[in-house]
């Protein structure tokens, strides 16, 4: 399929004797949100760490538009267009929201470490950062120190940064964790707005949000994929119902 | 400062560099091992303080120097090297306890820069206190009568008994430290503290006492090395500096917090330096750093250090 942006092939990661991720394959397509769900300890976070390059793979391969990422570090993957939001919000707390966004734009600019920047390049960077903040609903909050933003706003900012960096493959690790209802709604809407032209991999525990957002679902347990398909298919899967979703109806 | 003093050995030089017979090789090997073992005493204290307390202590070398001066002073005062040895270690241990209580305690969890600067301030204080108490003269300490003399190897070469005794003594201390850390309940507590402070606290282990003892023991080990080395070297003001750097290299080679790593690193440095002096006399002072650079390329967190995920 031509629109597969990120592909994992038989990914495996061992910690000593433990196989945290054992032969996982999945595709994330452009224009789609692909959610990965599963009980705690299923290997979801490890999977995301393998895809982002924060952890080295033991076996298998990761392809970005057909190109192997296996040997590249997180910074190289970042420049190739993989953006990541961490489970615990990871931003530059002492800088303003605007400066956070500007750093994200700068990281993927032509000369991210320029010593003598051109005025026009700087203006372009600033403009893109402003736009990214606006897209994330933070237009009015640019001057605030990031660590003084609310919990939900910090998460919005992190996602804004990932997008501002020009990432076209987004890895979102439990973006709704610890959010209030109102905040969760804002962020759900934000995530939905991101999928146009981008591939989104979402790890999330909030089943309402997952079934509301996901175009495709992969269910993991014990480091393996136990089911994969459209939300309807997965919902019908007897395997998943007993193993993970329990007896209640998630919808 | 001509590097660590125990390198200045009075034995006859080899006839021509680069070639050596088995006998000479054995002597050099022994020298290298003895040097490495002394280094291990200093470095093991350093690595324990790094690993368990998370504190970088630049003043560690100053305690080695202090140990040597204590050997000189106490031997002169009591007339017995053995009394000096026991007294010196006791004084260093108490000094360690006091310093932990007074200063080092405040460094736990602080940034490394703060630790660097405070221990640098401590060096200035210790150096000047040494100046006031003992002056800045170079001294020598006689080996105890019991261990004076040499073992005849060939017609030309003898090996000092005291050096051999230093080897054995350091080896015993090394084995003792290793057993203490890996085979006893105290060691278990200490290791648990290094792994997980919260857990240790939750288990009701007296954290403060453990910390204080570890710091004092680390200081005592450095001073012990100075005390033991005094009779085979000269006692001089700058001797702590060279030792500090070398024990840093040892810890970098072995990996922070690893006593076994410190042992490997110390022997590596001891042998590299000793044989470097024989084979590459003009490059010998650089050779250790070349080894360190190579290890850094190979394993940035040391030979036995924990690798970051």
């Amino acid at each position: 399929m031509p629109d597969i942006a990120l592909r994992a092939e038989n990914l495996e990661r061992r910690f000593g004797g433990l196989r945290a991720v054992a032969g996982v394959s999945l595709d994330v397509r452009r224009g789609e949100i692909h959610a990965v769900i599963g009980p705690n300890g299923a290997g979801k976070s490890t999977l995301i760490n393998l895809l982002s390059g924060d952890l080295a793979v033991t076996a298998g391969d990761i392809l970005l538009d057909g190109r192997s990422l296996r040997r590249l570090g997180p910074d190289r993957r970042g420049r190739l267009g993989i953006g990541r939001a961490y489970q615990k919000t990871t931003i530059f707390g002492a800088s303003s929201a605007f400066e956070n966004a500007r750093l994200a734009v700068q990281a993927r600019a032509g000369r991210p470490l320029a010593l003598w920047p051109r005025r026009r390049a700087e203006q372009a960077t600033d403009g893109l950062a402003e736009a990214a903040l606006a897209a994330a609903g933070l237009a009015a909050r640019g001057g605030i120190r990031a660590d003084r933003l609310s919990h939900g706003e910090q998460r919005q900012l992190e996602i804004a940064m990932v997008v501002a960096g020009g990432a076209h493959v987004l890895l979102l690790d439990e973006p709704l964790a610890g959010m209030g209802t109102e905040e969760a709604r804002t962020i759900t809407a934000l995530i939905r707005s991101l999928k146009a032209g981008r591939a989104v991999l979402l790890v999330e525990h909030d089943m309402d949000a997952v079934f509301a957002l996901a175009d495709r679902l992969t269910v993991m347990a014990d480091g393996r994929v136990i089911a994969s398909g459209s939300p309807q298919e997965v919902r019908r899967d007897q395997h998943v119902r007993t193993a993970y979703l329990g007896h209640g109806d998630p919808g | 400062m001509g590097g660590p003093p125990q390198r200045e050995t009075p034995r006859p030089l080899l006839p021509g560099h680069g070639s050596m017979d088995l006998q000479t090789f054995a002597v050099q090997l022994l020298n290298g091992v003895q040097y490495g073992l002394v280094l291990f005493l200093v470095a093991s204290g350093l690595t324990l303080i790094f690993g368990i307390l998370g504190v970088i202590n630049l003043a560690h070398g100053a305690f080695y120097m202090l140990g040597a001066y204590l050997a000189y002073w106490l031997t002169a005062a009591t007339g017995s090297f053995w009394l000096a040895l026991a007294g010196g270690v006791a004084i260093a241990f108490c000094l360690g306890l006091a310093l932990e209580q007074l200063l080092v305690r405040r460094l736990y969890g602080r940034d490394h820069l703060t630790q660097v600067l405070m221990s640098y301030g401590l060096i200035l204080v210790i150096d000047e206190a040494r100046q006031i108490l003992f002056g800045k003269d170079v001294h020598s300490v006689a080996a105890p009568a019991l261990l004076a003399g040499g073992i005849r190897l060939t017609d030309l070469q003898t090996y000092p008994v005291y050096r051999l005794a230093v080897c054995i003594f350091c080896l015993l201390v090394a084995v003792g430290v290793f057993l203490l850390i890996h085979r006893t309940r105290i060691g278990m507590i200490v290791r648990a503290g290094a792994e997980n402070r919260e857990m240790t606290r939750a288990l009701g282990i007296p954290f403060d006492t453990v910390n204080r003892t570890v710091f004092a023991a680390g200081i005592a080990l450095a001073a012990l090395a100075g005390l033991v080395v005094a009779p085979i070297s000269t006692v001089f003001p700058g001797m702590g500096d060279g030792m500090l750097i070398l024990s840093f290299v040892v810890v970098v080679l072995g990996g922070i917090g690893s006593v076994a790593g410190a042992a490997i690193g110390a022997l590596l440095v001891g042998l590299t330096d000793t044989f470097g002096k024989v084979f590459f006399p003009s490059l010998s002072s650089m050779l250790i750093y070349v080894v360190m650079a190579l290890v850094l390329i190979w394993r940035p967190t040391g030979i036995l250090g924990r690798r970051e995920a």
Partner: protein
Amino acid sequence: MTAPADRHSWLVLALLLVLAALPLLAPGYYVQFATKILLMGIAAMALNLVVGFGGLVSLCHGAFFGLAGYVLALTAPRYDPAALWWSLPFAVAAVALVALVIGALSLRTRGLYFIMVTLAFGEMLFYLFQDAGFAGGSDGTFIHYKPELAVAGLTLVDLEAPAQFFWLVLALAAGVILLLRHLLAAPFGRALRAARDNERRARALGFPIYRLQLGAFVLSGALTALAGYFAAAQFGFVAPQMLGWHLSAILLVMVVLGGLRTVAGPLLGAAALMGLEEVLKLATEHWKLVEGLAIIGIVLVSPAGLRRLATAAFGASASGGEHLAAPPRSTAEDTTATDRSIRHA
């Protein structure tokens, strides 16, 4: 994260301008002492690029300082002054090259290891000159003539005249402040501070952290060399002690004293520490004891205490501290002028 403590460095620049009158007012001894302070201050500001703004505690900058002096001593003709226009760039480039090698190896490590490794490599240079036959060994070697800054036989600045030497160094210090201010506000400096504040995020965004920090390390080493070159010229002498790690530690004290998050603060730190040393030397034979205790005391109250001191001395605007729990109203100060203009646009 603001363009670091702007007003602070303008204040220091103004101070330097006033100081330019010193040779007209004070006897030569004070002019030479002020020159020394400026040179140590330049080195401390250079070091702060990696320590304060990069978050990397280096203990080999003393070696860079001394090495530049040795390059001058070794390349100067015996009976003639060296020509500044080529020997200075040569010394700076040589030190930058050494910094590149040491940095490339040291930056493979983090935290405690980085401190130890830089210390060890610095000492390697110390032992190189200590044991080497080619540069006077442990006795050091003399630089008989100060370098000559001349074009077509016409002397532009006569470095043998203490006042002219002072003015040149003063201009250099001002230049370094302006350069560092510029670099820290440029993408390079912003990325450097970002990597210090949150390396993981900076890496995930795609910043090449290793290259970034190595660049800062080399730049910082080169600027330190600038100071070391002129210091050696001023002393007329180089010895292995000038490469020793005690110098690195002293520079660190100056940095902390002056303010880790400021460009020009370390210059003030240098003035404060060297002034203190002068006073202590007059007061007691055991001045190092007092200095050591003072350093311990400073460290115990810092950083919070130091910032209070700085605030008292320079007014509230000097405290560009990022850990400062400032009231919400002051958030406007957390953004640079350019940010503000954009928000209002």
